[in-house]
């Protein structure tokens, strides 16, 4: 902008010519990349099926209604398992994530050169890998069941909770901690009086937020054998029992709405 102002003929331009060229170039490259990717995906797609999709969708839709309500008796226990996987998994994750967060935050880590990179690596590894893949791995190692689901959920959640928490720790008010250390408090006392109260709302918010996400994620873990309602979903899909699928989807929807309600309630109470 300043360049435009200083140039002799006072013609106002939103961008100068170089910026304009750069912007066009970026758009062009972006479009080219997108077109290429779309081309590739289109090549590995059987378009015959896709053109047939509306008919199939209508067909499946008609089979899904009405839901098979009587199936609910077989769903209550898997649903209970699903909620437990999310809840216990989140609790375990919190236990492991809090120390990792303190090791990763610049202002609390014992060493920025050695400990912090390790903590950051734990966080990125945990975050990069979806809970379903963790579940796949754990089912393969410790066998199918709820335990694999719980561990999968907690392994995935560590990174999420630690990352948000360590960012909150790095943003605390330094003065409050200083005031506590000026009284002659020890390191641990500084932690519980100076730092904990400051990050408590963030911590509670993050935990409940993750629990909410985990409820959603745990609904599908059963698909790879890690317990919960996903197991029934998989079984029903395998035998094309669409009325049962409908009921499962309704149940999942209700659970998700419930968890969102609870998390909104808790967050409201704490802040």
């Amino acid at each position, binding site marked *: 902008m300043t360049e435009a102002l200083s140039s002799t003929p006072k013609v106002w331009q939103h961008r100068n010519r170089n910026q304009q060229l750069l912007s066009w170039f970026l758009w062009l490259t972006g479009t080219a990349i*997108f077109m290429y990717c779309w081309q590739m995906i289109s090549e590995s797609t059987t378009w015959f099926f896709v053109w047939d999709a509306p008919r199939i969708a209508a067909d499946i839709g008609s089979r899904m209604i009405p839901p098979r309500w009587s199936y609910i008796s077989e769903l209550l226990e898997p649903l209970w398992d699903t909620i437990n996987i999310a809840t216990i998994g989140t609790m375990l994750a919190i236990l492991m994530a809090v120390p990792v967060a303190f090791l990763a935050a610049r202002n609390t880590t014992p060493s920025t050169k050695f400990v912090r990179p390790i903590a950051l690596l734990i966080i990125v590894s945990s*975050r*990069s*890998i979806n809970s379903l893949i963790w579940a796949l791995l754990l089912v393969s190692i410790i066998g199918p069941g709820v335990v694999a689901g719980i561990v999968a959920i907690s392994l995935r959640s560590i990174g999420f909770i630690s990352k948000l928490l360590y960012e909150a720790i790095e943003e605390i008010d330094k003065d409050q901690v200083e005031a506590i250390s000026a009284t002659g408090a020890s390191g641990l006392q500084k932690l519980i009086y100076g730092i904990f109260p400051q990050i408590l709302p963030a911590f509670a918010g993050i935990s409940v937020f993750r629990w909410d996400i985990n409820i959603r994620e745990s609904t599908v873990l059963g698909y790879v054998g890690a317990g919960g309602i996903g197991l029934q*979903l998989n079984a029903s899909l395998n035998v094309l029992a669409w009325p049962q699928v409908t009921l499962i989807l309704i149940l999942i929807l209700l659970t998700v709405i419930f968890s969102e309600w609870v998390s909104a309630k808790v967050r409201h109470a704490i802040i």
Partner: protein
Amino acid sequence: MGNMVTSPNSVTSEIQSTSLPKSWAPPPFIKNRILRWGLMLGLVLYLYLSVGMLEVNWTRIYEGLDRGAKFVFGFMNPNFAGRWSDISEGIIESLMMTVTSTVIGIAISIPIGFGAASNLAPLPIYLFCRAIIALSRSFQEIIVAILFVAIFGFGPLAGVLTLSFASIGFLSKLLAEDIESMDKSQAEAVKATGSPWWQWINYGVQPQIMPRLIGLSLYRLDINFRESAVVGLVGAGGIGATLNTAFDRYEYDTAAAILILIIGIVMLSEYISGYIRAGVQ
């Protein structure tokens, strides 16, 4: 929390203000005694029931330790070469799905995001857009992928549609919240010049939400890549299928190689997007 009048402690302090209280305990977090103990009891009961009902097959876990060690060992010595053609094909397909689905997702999210902002949209449009967002956010990607595979057939297209659908819920919701919380006076100033609706959006609203939209899009690109690794488990294309095969065959060194690639790409994209975000703001 600020309501001190109902607190038993403050009442006693007012009575005793001449002779000061001698003991002190921190005020309880939940004031209502019945609610407090009820919640505590409920929590203990829940933990007892849920943990008590866990069926842990210790012998199976013990046997699994061996495989666990093998996996850790696989991580130390990842095998990229063994199935390199499968791995590279899968990763490239994942990346293409990521790009395509993010672009489609953004393109659809912007109108829906505007429609879901209560300060811009008329009520019927608002409700319609909010319904789409709620639907998209409620179901985990895998469930959507299963349905799309059933409808559109196996292959990356089902994956792209799944990820686009999931992106809509994410982007539109955050975009709508951003629009709702934007600075009113700036937008009003543009409106006051008598500009038509689209100019108002272009000058009054767009500049305010642009940096955030770019940030969110980059974040979603990152998420879509991670998710593209999973939709393959149900036949919707990407690296997931290769990963599934590797686990099924207990080829932990190959699985480790794939996971390391995923982690590496996520780290790289986080680094780049951090760089771009810093440049935008």
